[in-house]
């Protein structure tokens, strides 16, 4: 009786699909964390709310919106010290939002998102020093 040949192609497809699924879930999770941290920040500092929250929470938080979220986050970091009394270096919500954004960019393996995350991290580092 002949031994059937092993065929791993189905297994590999499944494994790859699982990887993509996991990466997408991870990105979405971190982006939602960014969103909820900023939402908390907006709630606490009521006067900030109108400028950014609409853009954040109306957009669908998915892999495609990574770069847009990065732009908004960057402009928030740049604007906040001048327009509000929020100390972004000490505020936990801002730090957590940046952390989760970096995590999502890392999970995406997307060059533009990684560039955006590096920009934000370097900006935050410069402001901290």
């Amino acid at each position, binding site marked *: 009786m002949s031994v059937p040949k092993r065929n791993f192609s189905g297994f590999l497809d499944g494994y*790859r699909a699982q*990887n*993509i699924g996991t*990466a997408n879930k991870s990105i979405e999770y971190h982006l939602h964390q960014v969103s909820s941290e900023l939402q908390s920040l907006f709630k606490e500092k009521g006067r900030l709310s109108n400028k950014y929250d609409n853009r954040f929470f109306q957009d669908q938080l998915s*892999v*495609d919106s990574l770069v847009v979220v990065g732009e908004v986050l960057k402009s928030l970091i740049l604007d906040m010290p001048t327009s509000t009394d929020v100390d972004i270096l000490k505020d936990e919500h801002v*730090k*957590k939002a*940046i*952390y*989760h954004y*970096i995590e999502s*960019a*890392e999970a*995406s*393996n*997307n*060059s*533009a998102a*990684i*560039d955006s*995350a*590096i920009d934000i*991290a*370097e900006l*935050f*580092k410069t402001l*901290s020093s």
Partner: protein
Amino acid sequence: MSWLNLFGACTLDYAYFLAFFTGGLVAFSEIASRYSDAPGALFKNYASWLYVSINGLSAVLVYCLSSFVDLKVAEKNMNDHPYILAIVSGVGAMAFLRSSIINIKHNGHNVDAGLNKAIQQLLDWVDRMYDRQRSREIVKRVGPLVKDLSPDFLATSILPSCMAAMENLTQSEISDVNNETKRIIESLTIESQAKSFQLGFCIARITGFELLQEVVTSLSATGAVPLSTKLAALRDLKLQLFQSRGDS
């Protein structure tokens, strides 16, 4: 003496070789145009020799068959001019053997009858075998070259540079490669690393491995940063910023 008489003076035995050679040449040009990235690689591949040989033998078969028929061109019997007949057989063999002789309608379906099915099946098999070997070579060489490059970098820097370097690309080839690149880049179901590989293979099929390698090396030397380097920089920054936090 007419030019037909000159050919007619040749011996019959050489005509078989000529038919084989012409048929093989047609097959070679066919396969070289299909795998235009590295036509030189055809010589190193046994599947391509098999393809050429089958076409050559088909040409000999057509030549043999044609000798049973009294073919007359301009009131001259072609059987008296075996070299001409051999060349015509070589060029026309594929057209003759790949077309169905008759088309029968059976139960509402058209059924082709002729040698074309068998020959086409054989040629498809050899063609697929050659394709697999070429693909394996491309994967082996292109994979390591592009594994650290991001899909965006390949699509926005490497591909346009390769296209600019090549002068005789047709508009349809450019359009095909652009469409394929767009499809890969915009896909939400292909992971990033797989996108890089696919783009690498897509570019290498048009440019060949050597040009792709040259362009990648040149652009890397100008400071274009590979994805792995960017990721390492991002991880460093994350560690510096959040080390003391133990993490969120």
